[in-house]
């Protein structure tokens, strides 16, 4: 038996490693500037200038914020469970970043004579992987809230976790209708289907499914109007009440990473992913790497539009009450998603796909 240690394609390994590093740093960088954008959008909606002191147009503000968070004193409460207290924010951040593994960021690029797909792993289960990671995000909230050893934190953690679980259900059901149309769970395949000639983006076939999905995405990211887990003013902050310094920063930051990733997922599933509208990619295959870069730019622009919608809603709509939140999730969205599923099934049968 041959004694090479690991039968791996080392080039592929290195290529994926570089890709992972790029995607994670890009996600973090975008999330960093999303915090800045959030404050600017809030400022515009409230008719005030917003942060404008650090650097030109206040562009260095996110770095100043980050520096402030890191420099602050780090407090671990006396009776807190120390390991879990540290694990909580780490888990929240990990779960937020892990999702980007299955997202197709663009078509292939050719570098050094190698075809490099701009997707870390086009796994067979695609979107289910996203759901698994999303459902793990709940642990970040629950562990953090419980380990703080504070009743308010614990109650907020339970509130947050039950919200996440409830809306995950409607989210999954709203996607079943879409998956019946695509017939595959692979995100790369779903994008390619939408790019085909004569095939529109999935939003045309699944407007109701998209509406339910975006509402659930808001709830999953704990964004207003669903930000009950961290309602600062009436429910005494949230599960991260006892956190300080960068651990608090991780919790707040993971929200922005989640927002970016869910925007990308919405763009991928319903808005053609890296497809450029009214532009035939297949006819311009000779553009090579530029075509792939245009695709990446396209998905980023779509993501930015969704992020803007997230912010727009946040600064427009007030927060729900808890019972309203649960009623909306269980009594409105779940039945609506089921009806959507039935209609889609009936239509598919009628056209006998």
């Amino acid at each position, binding site marked *: 038996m041959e004694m090479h240690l690991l039968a791996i394609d080392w080039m592929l390994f290195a290529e994926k490693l570089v890709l992972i590093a790029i995607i994670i740093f890009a996600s973090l960088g975008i999330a960093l500037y999303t915090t800045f954008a959030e404050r600017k959008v809030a400022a515009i909606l409230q008719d005030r200038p917003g942060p404008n002191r650090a650097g030109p147009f206040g562009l260095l503000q996110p770095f100043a914020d980050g520096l402030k968070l890191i420099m602050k004193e780090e407090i671990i409460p006396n009776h807190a469970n120390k390991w879990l207290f540290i694990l909580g924010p780490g888990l929240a951040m990990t779960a937020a970043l892990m999702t980007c593994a299955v997202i197709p960021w663009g078509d292939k690029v050719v570098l050094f004579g190698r075809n490099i797909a701009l997707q870390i792993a086009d796994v067979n289960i695609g979107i289910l992987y996203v759901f698994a990671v999303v459902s*793990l995000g709940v642990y970040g909230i629950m562990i953090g809230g419980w380990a703080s050893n504070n009743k308010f934190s614990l109650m907020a953690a339970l509130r947050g976790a039950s919200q996440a679980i409830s809306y995950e259900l409607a989210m999954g059901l709203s996607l079943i209708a879409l998956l019946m149309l695509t017939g595959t769970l692979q995100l790369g395949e779903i994008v390619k289907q939408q790019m085909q000639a004569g095939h529109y983006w999935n939003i045309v076939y699944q407007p109701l499914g998209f509406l339910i999905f975006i509402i659930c995405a808001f709830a999953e990211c704990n964004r207003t109007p669903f930000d009950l887990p961290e309602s600062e003013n009436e429910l005494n902050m949230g599960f991260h009440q006892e956190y300080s310094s960068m651990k608090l920063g991780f919790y707040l930051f993971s929200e922005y990473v989640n927002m970016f990733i869910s925007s990308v997922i919405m763009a991928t599933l319903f808005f053609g992913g890296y497809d450029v509208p009214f532009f035939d990619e297949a006819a311009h295959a000779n553009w090579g790497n530029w075509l792939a870069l245009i695709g990446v730019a396209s998905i980023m622009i779509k993501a930015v539009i969704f992020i803007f919608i997230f912010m727009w809603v946040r600064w427009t709509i007030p927060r729900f009450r808890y019972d309203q939140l649960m009623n909306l999730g269980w009594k409105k969205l779940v039945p609506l998603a089921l009806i959507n599923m039935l209609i889609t099934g009936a239509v598919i049968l009628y056209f006998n796909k």
Partner: protein
Amino acid sequence: MSAIQILFWFLSGLALVSAIMVLISKNPVHSVLWLVMVFFAISGHYILMNAQFLAIVNLIVYAGAIMVLFLFVIMLMNLDKTSDPQKNWWMKLAGVISGGCLLMEMATLVRQAAEMKEKTVMMKEGSIGLIGNLGKLLFSDYVVPFEISSVLFLSAMVGAVVIGKKN
């Protein structure tokens, strides 16, 4: 050792250590978190066998939903240290011996079973675990058990609603 073997031993070790930690952790919340680790390790095994759907459903259902409910219950019950009854050491020993006997019997039974002879796990290849093939199989050959189990779930749900409605 190939990469798969290394991964196999790593995941097996992880699963066993985590499973032992589930039992010996004093704090029930720690036990639940170790149990989540066990599920991760087992999902890793499924992925080694290319049973991607099973792996991910194991994570979504067990790690993502059932264990969260466990955590809910444990966090809300506020378990005291005093409520934990102390058992004699020979009770523990008897438990270990009887449990070990059961484990050994089961292991030998599985190893000698006629269906298991001449069969090895398909590593890395084999497409039966992919979602398309699994779905076709479930809705053709195994459609009756599949539907019956869905009735079981429905009755469980109705039961939960009835119990919840009482007050």
